[in-house]
């Protein structure tokens, strides 16, 4: 369960990324966050990933109040989630496989284990044959898939994906969404921000809509909670 209680994020230029948002996201579901550009989708994702802290309010993931984490605990929390974001760069001096393997290096796994995990994950995103390719040999959409593979390679219990299908054609976007939907069925909570409404047009997953930093509505599953 993820809970936001009266969360606001105001930037140094005075603008609000989010304004007084309170909601609950149940565990093991795929939730879409949508809204136009500037609505607060990315702010929401980065607050959940603890890449920035709210100026007001509380974010509680499971039993953990994110505001109370120390620097070391923040690192541990970030390690426990899979993050896809356009802000998260790929490493140009490494090949596809090595890029996907980066989160696996923290736990000092054996090379053979790392290789098999990477191969399986690349298989999921359709890039197994390009394991040894350099990034320069990939298209933009393929590079996005490498980032997605890197986000899911740890099989984390919580995945945050910020606009994962931007720059992808419909078919590829649908394939990527299928991967996330598969994870949501395996004890994983997946939060996907997107402005592409076709991804949730089947109404099978909760949708949260923001506009100008404020919660516009939350469909079935995701509950607009009433803060204090």
């Amino acid at each position, binding site marked *: 369960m993820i809970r936001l209680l009266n969360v606001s994020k105001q*930037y*140094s*230029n005075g*603008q609000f*990324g989010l304004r007084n948002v309170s909601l609950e996201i149940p565990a093991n579901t795929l939730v879409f966050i949508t809204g136009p550009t500037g609505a607060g989708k*990315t*702010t929401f994702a*980065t607050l959940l*990933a603890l*890449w*920035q*802290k709210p100026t007001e309010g509380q974010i509680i993931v499971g039993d953990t109040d994110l505001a109370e984490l120390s620097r*070391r605990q*923040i*690192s*541990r*929390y*970030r*390690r*426990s*989630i899979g*993050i896809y*974001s356009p*802000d*998260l*760069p*790929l*490493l*140009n*001096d490494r090949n596809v496989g090595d890029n996907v393997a*980066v*989160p696996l*290096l*923290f736990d*000092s*796994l*054996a*090379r053979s284990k790392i290789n098999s995990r990477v191969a399986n994950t690349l298989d999921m995103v359709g890039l197994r044959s390009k394991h040894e390719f350099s990034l320069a040999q990939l298209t933009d959409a393929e590079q996005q898939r490498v980032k997605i593979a890197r986000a899911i390679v740890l099989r984390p219990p919580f995945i945050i994906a910020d606009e994962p299908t931007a720059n992808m054609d419909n078919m590829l976007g649908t394939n990527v969404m299928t991967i996330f939907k598969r994870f949501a069925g395996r004890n994983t909570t997946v939060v996907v921000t997107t402005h592409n409404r076709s991804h949730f047009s089947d109404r099978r997953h909760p949708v949260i809509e923001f506009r100008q930093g404020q919660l516009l509505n939350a469909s079935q599953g995701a509950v607009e909670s009433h803060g204090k």
Partner: protein
Amino acid sequence: MGNSLEHKTRIFVQCLNSLRKPPLKIWHSILLSALILSMPVGLYMMGTTLEYFSFLVKQQPEITAFLSEDVEHNSAVLMQQKIQEMEEIESSQFISAEQALKEFEELTGLYSVMNYLQENPFPISIRAQVSAAYINPQDYETLLSQIQRLEYVDLVQFDYEWAAKLSSLRNVVENFGKAVFIPFSLVVFFLIISMSRRHVFFSLDEIKLLSLIGASRRFIYRPFIYTAFIQSFLIFILTFVIVESSLAYSAQSVSDLISLYQIDSPATATQWKAWGIIFSALLLIHIISVRLTVALQLRKLEFVKHA
């Protein structure tokens, strides 16, 4: 444990490989640092060798006081005692006229010299070794005039010119070494900082990525520390080779000089302690610089700033 070691080894090998990749192709920076560092280090090593050599040579200078011909044996012995009691004198020897003649014969090979002379021409003399604490030219002058003023002293001989020259030469090398050491070391210091900064700025994407996906600080620092170690080691090895080759090149000349003074001592010796200090200093500067630079970048990158 095994996996952790495997991981660390892999990172170390990656760091080694990264030295070949632009813009971390830093061989010219490493070579430049080594060449610049060689200058003050070489001068220091040479200065130390000269200092050691001059110290050995300084033990040899002697003052010889030739007494007048009419001095009696007892008075001569008293004279030796007086000289021995002087603060500047470390030891002294009484040399009778007969001993002086014998030394002369041995040194020159003219064993039949007395066949042509009516009497032994050598006077009684006192040979005195000057204490190491009084080895500068001013002290010698004072000492010589003091001895010269003593009763029965006919002539005082001491050739300190070479010692003064050696002392001056050592001072020149030492002072020049000190003078160039600070600016040249500063150049190396800034080169190392620049190398560290270049490495870190080239890796900003990696630092950002690792920080945002939850790598520990130790994990993030590790490749930079390894690279700093490798670079410091390479600078050190190159400096060592350059300086020791130069010293080896000059070793024969120093040996020749030493042999002139019949001193049984090696011409040059590798000064491992000094080299150890140089390597430690290089490594320390490099690691502190790289850690600080990464820490500063982490402060900027560990949280994103969306607007």
